[in-house]
């Protein structure tokens, strides 16, 4: 079981130095990044715009009409992939005990991460900009 800090109710920082400590800090750094990026993303697409208007055409011609919006969404994708998958790894290691079962679950998890990285990056890079020649 993971150890939960009674002070913060977060996971206790692993002792020593190395990968596990780095993961602990990466979770917190990406957490701060996501606090801004993920909450802004949700607010823009649910409070400023409404799902009723967000057709594929809306994304191509309005939402992603400038490089900066694509760059910010790609940054959000990177943060959420690292944070989400490292977070799920913590949960899996916590609950899946058997060696083979854990290996299989983690392999599936990492393959899913690579797949989402590819799908997300491909659509951000290849969706034509408004006015661009197809």
């Amino acid at each position: 079981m993971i150890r939960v800090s009674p002070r913060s109710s977060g996971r206790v920082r692993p002792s020593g130095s190395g990968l596990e400590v780095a993961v602990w800090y990466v979770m917190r750094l990406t957490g701060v990044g996501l606090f801004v990026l993920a909450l802004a993303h949700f607010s823009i697409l649910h409070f400023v715009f409404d799902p009723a208007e967000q057709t594929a055409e809306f994304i191509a011609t309005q939402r992603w009409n400038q490089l900066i919006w694509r760059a910010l969404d790609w940054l959000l994708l990177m943060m959420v992939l690292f944070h989400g998958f490292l977070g799920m790894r913590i949960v899996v290691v916590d609950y899946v005990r058997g060696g083979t079962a854990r290996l299989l679950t983690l392999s599936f998890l990492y393959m899913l991460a690579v797949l989402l990285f590819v799908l997300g990056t491909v659509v951000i890079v290849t969706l034509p900009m408004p006015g661009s020649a197809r």
Partner: protein
Amino acid sequence: MPSAPALLQRFPRLASGGDAHREVLMNVLRYRGREGMVAWAFHRISGVGIFLFVVLHVIDIYLVGGDPRAYNELLAFYASVPGRFLEVLLGAALLYHALNGMRIIIIDLWPTMTAYHRQIWWASWVIFVAVGVPGAAIILRPIWLPILRGIGVA
């Protein structure tokens, strides 16, 4: 039970000391209630929930380029009444996870803030309600606005 700031004043070395002191401090502060356990469980549940949505969401956005018609069909569900209730749930999970996550980060990386643990905990719930209730109202607008119009209020 004395308040946390009073405790820290009485045992100044606990607040600034090494791991052994911190261990004692943690045990002392543990008696401040059961919020910690609930906060942890909610954080894990909301984290896994948001993760599952992100998997769906990256795939659906891929469809904007890959199969725009399929994307539009899914979006029609997002804009429907059941879809909107799910979005409120997603927003609540995200807002809770974000606020509680910041609370964890502040206390983990800035241990003296433990003295204000209770204030930070309550402040995060005040923000949760202050942002969440108007947010939910905006998302659910297509449900209540026609009703208000129907009775001639809006």
